[in-house]
């Protein structure tokens, strides 16, 4: 059901772990599927993401999107990181099955949550960054007949 890229990132997830005293940390979940994702940023004085780690309690897609999303934002500025959408993550993973699209939203939202936390700590705002939801499950709809 998953692409090779997904399986690769699932089996060998990049950036697993925690960062002590992170510049920003964000935790989001999906009450519906019960999954939880936490992303830690170490951001330098130039607003570049020097390091990023994640912990995920979730399905294969959740693990793989965490891994890919962290790869995509690593070394980027916080403004660039904001552009990393769930679509970009899915594309980088060669796609996800329809029921798993929400898992990639979890990754996008976790990045935003960590950025928000960073901004709050720094007392800055980034244009276009809204206060992230801690539960993304409301956004979804199920196919209905």
């Amino acid at each position, binding site marked *: 059901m998953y692409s090779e890229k997904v399986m690769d990132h699932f089996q060998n997830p990049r950036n697993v772990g925690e960062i002590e005293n992170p510049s920003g940390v964000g935790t989001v979940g999906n009450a519906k599927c*019960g999954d939880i994702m936490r992303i830690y940023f170490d951001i330098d004085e130039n607003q570049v993401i020097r390091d990023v780690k994640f912990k995920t*309690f979730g*399905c*294969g897609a959740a*693990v793989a999107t965490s891994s890919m999303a962290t790869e995509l934002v690593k070394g980027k500025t916080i403004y660039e990181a904001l552009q990393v959408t769930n679509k970009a993550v899915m594309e980088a993973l060669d796609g996800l099955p329809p029921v798993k699209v929400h898992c990639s939203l979890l990754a996008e939202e976790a990045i935003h949550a960590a950025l928000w936390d960073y901004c709050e700590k720094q007392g800055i705002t980034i244009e276009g960054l809204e206060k992230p939801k801690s539960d993304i499950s409301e956004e979804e709809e199920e196919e209905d007949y």
Partner: protein
Amino acid sequence: MNKTIYLDHAATTAARPEVVEAMLPYFTEKYGNPSSIYDMGAKNKGVITQARETIADSLGTTPENIYFTAGGTESDNWALIATVEGYAGKGNHIITSSIEHHAVLHTCQYLEKRGFEVTYVDVDENGILRLDQLKAAIRPTTILISVMFANNEIGTIQPIKEIGEIAHEHGILFHTDAVQAYCQLPINVDEYHIDMLSASAHKLNGPKGIGFLYIRKGVKIRSFIHGGAQERKRRAGTENVPGIIGFSKAVEIAQATMKERTEKELALRERLISRIYKEVPYVRLNGDHWNRLPNNVNFSFQFIEGESLLIMLDMAGICASSGSACTSGSLDPSHVLLAIGLPHEIAHGSLRLTLGEDNTEEEIDYVVDKIKEIVEHLRGMSPLYED
């Protein structure tokens, strides 16, 4: 280990070679329609009757009470929908349990939309029906009690005889979904006061797409699938002759080997349970330890999520599931695990391993080793786990 270790026998099983062999002639040579007058077809009517006898014997009943269907789901739908239609004059109330298979639960929801009333009786923390609640739920308008013989996720065996007696005393029809229990446990429909019983061939090394509904003589159940005069005018459609033959062959073998097979499975089950208990921290065995199908193991591993576990097991050559196969695609945690009181996130980390007669001790040991490894790896990634 290089070969696949199949531990999902509750989802489906391989048809036995003897079963396939028994079916083969009915595809290409003895293909006649059993309702035909000519010998080549009419003979198949006799062959079906023999199959019905084999199955009737396994339940302590007579062949005219066995009706073939396309599987357990159809049997459940038939038992519920057509019974309540037939007895609508008596009342409109059904009692079932909160941990039934979706084939029963979704059918109940369908009937609720049609104006029938359903009470979902709770189970205790081991998944055993609360008999006091059952008794309290009975109304003058109750026409049917439907409680599964054994649960497909946690393997808990219900007090079927007691339930049957309660139903019988109150003059209420009793249906049991025995899809998981049939040919795993000895069943006598008279002793247990069972009026209707559903079973499915592919759970016992028979072919997919064939099941039966036992209906006690005298139960005024209507047709569910309307059309030709097959199955004594109660279930229309050209008979699936190869499927019926395959089913009866599978039953014949499964009945003959039941004792030996389930003893073996029980020993493996206990080895699996005790090793996991001892060697993996933060685990919970779901379902009653002893009132349980001989081949069922269901564990919750705290802090980890089921799908990841299953994929990693698959990569290690182990076929397992998180619960019912039919709900894959749904994100909701198992209604069964919630019903026995598990919180959401623990319900999500459950693993069902269901044994078959070909599994070996060596396989079980390999599986336990792999589970330990994978659980540790996934916990290392989990934001919920702090060691």
